[in-house]
């Protein structure tokens, strides 16, 4: 594969315009476009369109009366963005979201990698365990939200009972503001199945001869892990790092169910659980400040874009692609 890559580089790319023209003449290109057309149409109609609309709404007083068509939508300039800066709950919700993401992303990656490495070594019953580990991933997030309250109840929860067996008095996970986010992060680790499957596929793709060569050079298990395994699966790690970070920053359903919706009376919504998207949802669908909520959505989008860009820049030093240099 490396030789193919180097030979194509040696031949040099055809001139851009000529290459594009010749590509367009090929039947396969049109077939490919035809196949992706439904997605493109769906993206334009269901994602890009609403995004553009929400950008416009973020500069307006769009609310329930405008939705119903009883009042005209008025432009308010940067008013919604100014309010964002003045609302202390925005800073609070962003802080909560960042802390949660910082807790959940490394935890999920480490647990998923650990499970994948165990599964990669199991000769018999790997399929069974793969299914078992993946099952929580298909559990509805609403059910997980309820489970958080049941498992982490400070009085009779399973987690504290288990901790009690080894002599550790468990905290009040669901009521103590200091423990609400850790409990949410721990619960999120329960759903590492998808990440684990990605790592498992990446681990299986690591050429065995690299391990053999390393072993012959005297590398022990840790050395092989850090110098062979990690570099070889770094694209998968990077991909999940990006995806999990975005998911963490957008976390909603489990938290909303547990503390703001079905799982609670709604009267005991703790500030410690107020994630950014939860607050956005409340502004939009409980307080009907759609313009403000749109501004919130765009700020979060910008934050995610910046964080992702930073991740890409930093990744150039750590991610190794087969057939290419570190990028």
């Amino acid at each position: 594969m490396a030789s193919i890559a180097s030979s194509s580089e040696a031949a040099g790319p055809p001139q851009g315009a000529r290459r594009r023209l010749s590509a367009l003449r090929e039947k396969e290109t049109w077939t490919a476009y035809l196949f992706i057309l439904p997605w493109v149409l769906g993206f334009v109609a269901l994602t890009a369109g609403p995004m553009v609309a929400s950008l416009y709404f973020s500069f307006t007083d769009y609310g329930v009366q405008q939705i119903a068509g009883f009042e005209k939508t008025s432009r308010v300039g940067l008013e919604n963005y100014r309010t964002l800066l003045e609302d202390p709950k925005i800073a609070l919700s962003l802080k909560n979201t960042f802390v949660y993401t910082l807790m959940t992303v490394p935890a999920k990656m480490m647990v998923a990698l650990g499970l994948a490495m165990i599964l990669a070594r199991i000769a018999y019953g790997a399929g069974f365990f793969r299914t078992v580990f993946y099952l929580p991933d298909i559990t509805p997030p609403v059910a997980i939200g309820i489970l958080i309250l049941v498992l982490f109840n400070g009085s009779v929860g399973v987690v504290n009972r288990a901790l009690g067996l080894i002599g550790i008095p468990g905290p009040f996970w669901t009521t103590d503001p200091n423990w609400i986010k850790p409990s949410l992060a721990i619960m999120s680790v329960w759903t590492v199945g998808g990440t684990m499957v990605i790592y498992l596929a990446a681990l299986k793709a690591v050429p065995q001869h690299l391990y053999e060569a390393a072993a012959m050079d005297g590398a022990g298990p840790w050395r092989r892990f850090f110098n062979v395994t990690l570099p070889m699966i770094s694209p998968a790690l990077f991909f999940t790092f990006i995806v999990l970070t975005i998911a963490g920053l957008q976390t909603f359903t489990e938290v909303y169910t547990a503390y703001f919706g079905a799982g609670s009376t709604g009267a005991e919504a703790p500030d410690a659980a107020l994630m950014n998207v939860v607050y956005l949802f409340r502004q939009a669908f409980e307080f009907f400040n759609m313009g403000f909520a749109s501004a919130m959505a765009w700020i979060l989008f910008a934050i995610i874009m910046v964080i992702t860009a930073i991740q890409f820049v930093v990744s150039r030093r750590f991610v190794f692609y087969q057939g290419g240099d570190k990028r």
Partner: protein
Amino acid sequence: MVSRWSRRGLALAIAALCAIVATSIASAKPAEVAGVQATQAHTLNIYGLGGRDDVAQGRLDIANAVIRGLGHSVNNPQGGFNDQTFLARLAARDIPDLVHMGRDSVGTYAARGILAPLDGCFKAEGIDKNSYRKAALSQVTYRGKLFGAPEFTNQITIIVNNDAAKKAGVDPADIQTTNWKRLKQANKKLLRIENGRLTRIGFDPKIPEFFPLWVKWFGKDMISKDGLKAQLNSREAVAALAYTVGLINDHGGWNKFKAFRDTFDFFGRNNQVAADQISAWPMESFYYNVLAEGNPVNITAKFFTNRKGGPITMLSGNAWAIPKGSKNPGLACKYIKALQADSSWLTVAKNRFDLRKRQGRAFTGLYTAKATADVKIYEDIYQPMGNKDFDQAVALLVRAPRYAFAVPLSPASSEFRQAWIDAINRVLEGRQTPREALDQAQREAQAAIDKAK
């Protein structure tokens, strides 16, 4: 090749056009008939009624019969009111004719011009506004106009677990809210902590939810009558918050208290009273049904009293409202009238009484937003069930709405409520003093009201 495809395409297009025209011609005659009927027959589209027990279904059947008797139909799919769904329907201009929603939501929608005033409806159909409880009406009245027809009252009274009081050696007379000092002493005796674990709550003040009741103890309201001026950081509100948080802290703090309360089998047979997990707490009227159907309990129902010893209670519940843009507001109004006629309430109350009798279960009454219906149900249908605890509770519940108040509607009801709930949570979590928390809540609530009005 291209021309051949073009010809084929043209032929297909013509064929499709012919098919559409033919279908239209074929269906023209029935459509005219339907059109004639459509000018006479309408479908009343209803949205927001979720769980339907015998009482709800019985009243729906009565109202449906009235509408169908007029030659119209009713479309009333089961599903509770949800803001998102309602907004989606508004956006799609699929506006329901009649909506069932929480009374605390009515103000938010009314202030934004989404609901139509019902004063004309009540007048046209001869619905007597005076037959409704004043407090319930105040929850659906915004700027002097009526925007909803309230249904139930859910009045709050104190439920005392007699067995717990007896075990703790507390005189049930001391479980009252007039004398806060005595209540605090009783609370400390009633709560039970074993090996550092809370195993029974003494007196649960039920905050944040019932905080307005504790402020009313002083005779004060948390918002002005017109719903435009928040009064969250009054001296009285601060005192009420400090006191009620103190009752909770006596149990070892909010974390311990709530974690234990979350373990209750609230609607189950082995509920917190049957399981001896609580001694006393203020609770809405519906909960007597839960207790009546659970494992045997020994209870006393008491009024929540103010500082002078007078009974007070707070109402809550749902209401029927007609959205602006409803295609059939007249029919919707007739439907409301049929649903809430005294005769309808009496019919379903009688049916429930008979049903419960057949099942050998207790009938704990119906508590509607109409005083006239309540009186008739109690006098004509209700019969003491032979269980002195529940008979006493029913007698108290029937009287309770006379002493009722409700938090007045505000154009930012949701945000107003959230502001004081958040404040109480901050105090419960120990992050702010009552004064700091309520000052912040006052600022947040007033800003939201000013923006919405």
